[in-house]
């Protein structure tokens, strides 16, 4: 079957292959412009072929100047994550047929990562964030002797398989919406790996980890958009791990942050009236003593009032609100 594939090319040197290779779709010598551009190729492959098959076929027989990271071809090494039709995926796991839009597949290095060349991005931001969460076991005392393992239930190890399945492909960070506007955000992979250690009963630094993770750039800078869960090829579901961390952090007492206040304000509103009271949500989440924070939200409050969109000052409870309050009493936890 014939497939058409559009590949994002870039080389700051502007030098591409200048030897004639049969079957090439463009004449040598290639122009030396260093700008990013798309180059179209057609390949003949079996119908179940994946994007990586096409890229390898191109660089082996059509255009040897195409740079792409790949190794295992079977979704375990994590090398070949890239944007395929605008979303981060492993090239070796993406069937061309499933990723054909208007008769072609477009691949490129994601704009959220610095670019080295063609499909090879600079993974430094990713590795730095990984390192930043101190992703290694800080052994809990007493450490068993050299011929003895820690005794832990299999369920505890099983629970971590999801996080350990991460192959560091970076698809999650590539499509992370928070990272796109906030380069300081630790990002889904690093946070999922942070949970891997927080959730390990043999690790000694849970409190310290949670304290660090509750700081700016950490668990509360995630916008909860599920892109990482959707794009992760190994089912790590980073957002789920971030949410686990949030709950653990709050339960551990790291509550002096907008995230906790937000949840508290939300819960108290729903407990009281069965509904969210947007009027109080924003100021309560910001923190009543956070003057600057409060002042920042004033302009939008004023705009809303002017447009007649301010919710009623007296927040009415829904009929049957006693039911809701009973539920809170029963299972409200710290929101009781």
């Amino acid at each position, binding site marked *: 079957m014939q497939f058409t594939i559009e590949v994002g090319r870039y080389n700051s040197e502007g030098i591409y292959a200048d030897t004639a290779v049969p079957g090439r779709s463009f004449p040598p010598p290639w122009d030396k412009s260093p700008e990013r551009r798309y180059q179209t190729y057609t390949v003949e492959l079996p119908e179940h072929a994946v994007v990586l098959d096409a890229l390898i076929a191109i660089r082996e027989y059509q255009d040897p100047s195409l740079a792409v990271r790949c190794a295992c071809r079977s979704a375990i090494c994590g090398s070949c994550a890239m944007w395929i039709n605008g979303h981060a995926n492993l090239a070796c796991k993406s069937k061309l047929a499933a990723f054909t839009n208007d008769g072609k597949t477009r691949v490129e290095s994601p704009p959220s990562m610095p670019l080295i060349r063609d499909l090879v991005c600079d993974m430094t931001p990713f590795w730095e964030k990984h390192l930043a969460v101190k992703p290694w076991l800080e052994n809990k005392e007493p450490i068993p002797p050299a011929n003895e393992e820690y005794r832990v239930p299999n369920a505890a190890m099983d629970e971590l398989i999801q996080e350990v399945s991460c192959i560091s492909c970076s698809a999650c960070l590539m499509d992370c919406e928070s990272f796109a506007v906030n380069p300081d955000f630790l990002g889904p992979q690093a946070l999922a790996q942070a949970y891997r250690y927080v959730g390990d009963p043999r690790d000694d630094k849970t409190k310290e980890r949670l304290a660090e993770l509750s700081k700016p750039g950490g668990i509360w800078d995630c916008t909860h958009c599920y892109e990482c869960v959707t794009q992760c090829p190994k089912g790590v579901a980073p957002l789920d791990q971030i949410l686990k961390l949030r709950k653990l952090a709050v339960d551990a007492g790291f509550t002096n942050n907008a*995230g906790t206040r937000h949840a508290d304000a939300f819960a108290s509103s729903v407990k009281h009236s069965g509904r969210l009271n947007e009027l109080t949500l924003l100021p309560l989440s910001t923190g009543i003593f956070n003057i600057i924070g409060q002042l920042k939200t004033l302009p939008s409050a004023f705009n809303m009032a002017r447009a007649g969109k*301010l919710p009623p000052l007296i927040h009415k409870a829904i009929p049957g609100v006693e039911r809701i309050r009973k*539920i809170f009493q029963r299972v409200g936890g710290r929101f009781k």
Partner: protein
Amino acid sequence: MKVAFFPGCVSKGACPELYVSANLIAEPLGLELHELTQAPCTGAGVLSEQNPELADALNGLTLAMAEAEGADLMTICSTCQGVLSNHNYKFAHDEARLERANATIADQGFRYGGTTKVKHLLWMLFEDIGEDRIRAAIKRKLTGLKIAPFYGCYILRPVESLGLKERPERKGYLERLITMLGAEAVEYKGATKCCGFPMITFNRDKALAMGGNHIIEAKEKGADLLVTPCPLCHLNLDGQQPDAARVLKKDIGVPIFHLPQLLGLAFGFEPDQLRLNHHVVSTKGALEKVELKV
């Protein structure tokens, strides 16, 4: 067609224009709205994250109420849709979890049997109401308008609980609707991305930049307005738009419509009936293009 109508908190709070327009378009669409007035807030994912058991009970109650009505639960908010679908999916795959939720709501006389279908108005348009009915209701084609769809994360992800593996066409309903109403759907990357609302209290500037960037992208692709099925997105994209413009140091000025408002216009309702005169970002420019005043 009878539906158990779950308007969500925001349509009865900061976005009354949504509630009003949703009620107006019910008749032309043949929808009989039985509002679940006693159903609580879904928790918007915030409660699910901090106390899953609490969120299970609250949403189990809502689902049970819809089940008692004997009708599908219709949402008009992507976030409500996402949270309710999520809990519904978990109940369907974890009997023990459903049992625990039922134990909590039992003495209020409710028990959720797991049969409620949760559907956003956007889905019902194509899956239950049908294109023919919609076309028949159109009195005013929106020709000349370039409309950018903005779905809102929780009506698109996670894929499993939203049934998107079985019905991938749900990912394109807004574009289809826009075209059906006679307008041109703007193609841009931000359509499926995040407005920033979940983060607005944690990291205000970044949350505003997020939403603002997407609107600007749509604007640069020629959009006259954005339409969204989520009032929380609306709050961020419309309510906070002037602040976003300030943070990004760029002019924005693109009005944001709720889905029912767009339908309402097409069905012949007047802008002020749909409260299009009660937005933070003026809808005037867009309405003028279809010869309407606000």
